[in-house]
Structures are given as C-alpha cells and as structure tokens.
C-alpha cells in the first residue's frame, strides 16, 4: 500500500530546464495552471451577461469580489484599494487551489511548504517595502510602539523584530501544515477502510466527516491567509 505521503510527491510531466535550473512542468504546476484557468473562466464567464440582477454564477463572482473587498476595507481602509487585485488573486488562488486539492487523485499545491513560503515571502517583502516607501526610516518605529518607556527598548525591540521576521514563516507554515495534515489524515483513514473489511465502515464514516471538515479548513485557511495579508498591509500603511 502506498504511503499516506505518496500523494504529496512531485511528478514531472514535461522536463524543462532553463539555464541549468530545473523548471519542469509537474503535477503541481498543472494544478496551478488549472487553478488559474478555472478562476479566470469562473470569474469571466459568470459575468458575461452583466445582468443587473445576478444569476447564480454571477452571484459567485460578485460575492467573492465583495467578500475580499469588505475584508480589505475592514482591515486596511480606503488606502487598501490599491492592493485589492493582489489580495483578491491571492485569496482565489489559495482557495481554489485548496478546493481542487479535495478532488480525489488530484494534487494540492498548497501542501508544499515551498509554495506557501513563496507566497508568504511575497506578502512579507511587499508589505515591508510598502511600509518603508510610505514612512521611510520612520517605519523602524514599528518595532518600538509609542509610549513605551525607553528602558524597555532593549528588551522590546528584539522581540518585535523577531515577531515581525517570523511572520512569513508562520503564514507559510499554517497553510502548509493544515493542508498536509488534513490530506495525510484522510489518506490514513482511507487506508483503514480497505484493510478492515466490513468494520471498515467505521473509518469510512470518519473519512466522510473528515472530508467535510477539510472543505471547511480549505476555505478557512484561504481566508486566514488573505486576512493576515490584509493585517500586515494595514501595519505597513498605518503602523500600530
């Protein structure tokens, strides 16, 4: 029987090498592309009619738009509008990536730390750059909140710096760990179903319940990723 971790294996589909660097088109890349095409098609075709009263498909597009727009407005404010396309893309990319991963025999690219870390680093470097561009060197005040007694600075600054620097890793690890753990758990219980014969109905019920839970987690982690991006963006724009 295949190991529960077998599902996370990267399988090259087309071998590509760019300047000696492996850039093969893998099952992970395929799922990313399906996500891109799926999100684009869903969003684009659902509002082709541009009806005043939305149908079901148009409602999906509009709901996702207003969902992310409200998230951004509540957490960042009016200044966040500029970054709406990025947050929206991030949210949809992670959400649909997670959801497509729930289809049996597909692949969940968000279960790879390198992918989540890549996205988290983009968020981290992006928000830090925005912070320095907006506040200049004043942004360093972020590490020493207003009204802090000066004798606490030697203690507080390292803590603040450390907590700031761990942001991309916590952001990346949260998504990666949730997806990996959930899918591994599903696979382990799935293995029991076949192995236990008639009693296998018990792990089967567990798998059904866990699938529902994993669908929730898939949405929730996309939401958490997007809302933390909003919060980091708010920190960069408005400091504390």
């Amino acid at each position, binding site marked *: 029987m295949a190991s529960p971790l077998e599902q996370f294996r990267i399988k090259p589909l087309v071998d590509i090498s760019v300047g000696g660097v492996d850039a093969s*088109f893998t099952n992970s890349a395929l799922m990313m592309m399906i996500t891109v095409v799926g999100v684009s098609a869903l969003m684009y075709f659902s509002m082709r009619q541009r009806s005043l009263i939305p149908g079901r498909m148009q409602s999906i597009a509009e709901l996702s738009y207003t969902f992310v727009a409200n998230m951004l407005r509540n957490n960042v404010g009016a200044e966040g509008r500029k970054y709406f396309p990025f947050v929206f893309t991030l949210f949809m990319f992670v959400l649909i990536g997670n959801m497509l991963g729930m289809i049996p025999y597909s692949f969940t690219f968000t279960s790879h730390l390198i992918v989540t870390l890549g996205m988290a680093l983009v968020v981290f470097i992006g928000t830090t750059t925005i912070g320095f561009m907006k506040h200049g060197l004043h942004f360093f005040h972020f590490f020493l909140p207003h009204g802090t007694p000066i004798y606490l600075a030697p203690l507080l600054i390292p803590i603040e710096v450390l907590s700031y620097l761990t942001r991309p890793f916590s952001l990346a690890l949260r998504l990666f760990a949730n997806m990996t753990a959930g899918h591994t758990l599903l696979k382990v219980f799935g293995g029991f179903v076949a192995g236990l014969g008639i009693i296998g109905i018990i792990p089967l019920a567990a798998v059904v319940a866990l699938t529902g839970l994993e669908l929730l987690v898939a949405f929730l982690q996309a939401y958490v990723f997007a809302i933390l991006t909003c919060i980091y963006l708010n920190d960069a724009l408005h400091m504390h």
Partner: protein
Amino acid sequence: MPQFDPSVWSPQIIWLIVSFVALYYIMSRFVLPRLNEILEEREFRISDSLRRAENLKEEAEQAVAAYEQTMADARAKAQAQVQSSHERAERLAAERNAELGDRLADEIAAAEARIGAARTEAVAGIRDMAAEVAGLAVEKLVGTRPAAENVLAAIDDTLKRAS
C-alpha cells in the same frame, strides 16, 4: 516527506510565479474592473431609483394636498349655496302663503256677503209666498180673501213664536 526534497523546489517556485502572475494579470486587467463596473452600475441604478421614488412620493403628496384643498373648497361652496337657496325658498314660500291667505280671506268675505244677501232674499220670498198660500187657503175655506196686512201679521206672529 516529498515537501522537504530540495530538488522539487525550483520547478514549483518557477511555476508558482508564472501562474500567480498570470492570474494577477487576468484578474486586475479583465475581471475585477468589469466586476467593479457591474457593481457600481447597480449601486447607481438603485440609488437613482430610490431618488426617483422619493421625488414621485413628494409629488403624490402634493397632489393629495391639492385635491383635499379643492374638496374642502367645493364642500364649503356647496354648503353656502344650499344655505342661500334654502333661505330664498323659505322667503318665497312665506310670501306666497301670505298672498294666498289674503286672497282667500277676500273670497271668503265676498262669499259670505253673497250668502247673506241670498238668505235675506230667500227669507223675504218665503214670507210673501206664505202670505199668498195662506190667503189662498183661507179663501178656499171661508170664501173671502183676508186682507194682506192681516195675513202678513199672522205669519210674522207665527214665525216669531216658532223661532
């Protein structure tokens, strides 16, 4: 775990960049502006409709007020007209009544005078005729005709006793 095999990192990162940039481009260039347009248009249509409804409501309220004013005026006018025609009719009726009463009184007086005259005439006629009949009766019984004055005197006497 396959996740910690560094040999699969570079293709994933490269394709992550490719797909994310592609999705960002499609979203920011085609999808989101269009969605925003749709939502804004709807917002505009709703607020426009609301404003129009507000205006129409105001107009309707004005029309109702004007209508009520007209109704009140008409009612007051009708009331005044009824009052005045009522008064005129009463006055007319009183006049006619008085006129009729006068004429009737005149006619009654005339008729009474005529009746009185007729009665006097009739009474006189009866006396003469009674005298004639009495004279003839006496002549038939006695053979001689009594003097007219005597007969008249006797009749007068009898009438006086009878009455």
